[in-house]
């Protein structure tokens, strides 16, 4: 888990995976909940798919937020760009840890090639 968070603090999203059974470990942990072996966070593509989305009015300005799936992990993050729809391909543009210890993920719609 320290592994995952030390990358996240630097704005990098790494996927924690079990060193034994190779499965994605989520939420991040020092051990795999399936086979109880150790975990390493490694590089992975930053592209995902929108599972569903909606609009939040909590902050000063409206934000489109969505449930995005990448590498079998589902995250809630903000989404910019168009069109935002279910199945849209998005890219993780930034992520990190706030001074208060909170976590954030920001996505952008990837232009589809015709």
């Amino acid at each position, binding site marked *: 888990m320290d592994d995952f968070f030390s990358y996240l603090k630097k704005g990098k999203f790494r996927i924690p995976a079990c060193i034994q059974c190779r499965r994605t470990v989520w939420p991040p942990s020092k051990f795999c909940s399936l086979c109880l072996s150790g975990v390493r966070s490694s590089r992975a593509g930053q592209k995902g798919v929108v599972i569903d989305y*909606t609009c939040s009015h909590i902050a000063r300005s409206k934000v489109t937020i969505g449930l995005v799936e990448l590498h079998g992990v*589902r995250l809630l993050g903000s989404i910019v760009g168009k069109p935002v729809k279910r199945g849209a391909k998005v890219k993780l543009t930034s992520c990190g840890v706030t001074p208060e210890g909170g976590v*954030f993920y920001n996505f952008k719609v990837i232009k589809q090639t015709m």
Partner: protein
Amino acid sequence: MQRVAIASQNTAKFTERSKLSVFELACDPCISILKETKIPRQMIDGVLLAGCSTQQQYGSNIISEMLGLRPKLSHRIESLCNSGTNAVAAGYSYIKSGLCECVLIVGAEDSATPGRRLDWDISRGAFTSPVFWAAMFAKSHMRRYGTTEEQLARVCVNNRRKAKKNPNSLFSTGVTVRDVMDSKKVVEPLKLLDCSRICSGASAVLLVSENKAKKFAEIPVWIKGIGQHSIGASFSEASKTTISAAKTAASIAYRRSGLKPNDVDIAELHDAFTILEILAYEDLGFVKKGKGGEFLDQREKSINTRGGILGCGHPIGATGIAQLVEIATQLAGQAGKRQAKGCKTGLVHNLAAAGTSATVLIVDTDQNG
């Protein structure tokens, strides 16, 4: 094997905030119970305190001391929003196993509770508040089954109307569908009045063995079945239209009680957000999948007669107990202006943390309410 009954129950008034300590809050409904019940204080051999406050360390022992009780088994129980029903499951088990005979179970919460958030679940990113996952459930259900925002609004309208007859509820005024639709947008499709309000409050029940019930309880309400299930601690189901933990908990409770959804006359459902009540109708088998919105028009079952969470407010650890108190009060025919007719079998449905945990309790009386 001996049955377990609710011998006495009480809910104190829920308020936006309280100057009382969590222990003083907890003692309020307990004092009412101790004054009302025929069970002598020295017979109470279990005290369980449900709640999320960090101020509650050693809380069950502290309130035992304040109330002049000397229990054998005494501890806190915490499971965020279903701490209350978890405590009931524990108390029931202590009596069934013979470890205790009379267990006082109290849920108490201050509105400043840390139970409002679950920091562990980083899959929520910056969107930590429960309204985000509730909005995703609502969006999915509307898209898949055509549930409308007006139907969501009607859940609030119904429960606020019922809360008007409940002197302990946070809210004492009704709202219209228009009021809900016009209330401030929070996370679409949910608006302010689609969301419940965290508040301060406490509620308590006294569970007893069948022997003690027959001797001391005027109208015992029997616990017929308990079901619980949890699917982890991280938000994972939002694109689905079922809270699977609730469906599983319900099937366990029905099986253990030998009853079916049709047998349930009255229910308290976890309406922390309007969509959750609509999902509950379906997950509990009251109506087919997708028809939750239409169930709003039914008249066979009495739903959330105390006003639900939307009407009463949500003192997190106390909610599950307050739900059970309402059902027990109704089944015992003691609900006064709120009394529903012909209730023999009641159900409590209590969720936690994005529906990752759910408890269902089924209770009944030997007489018609």
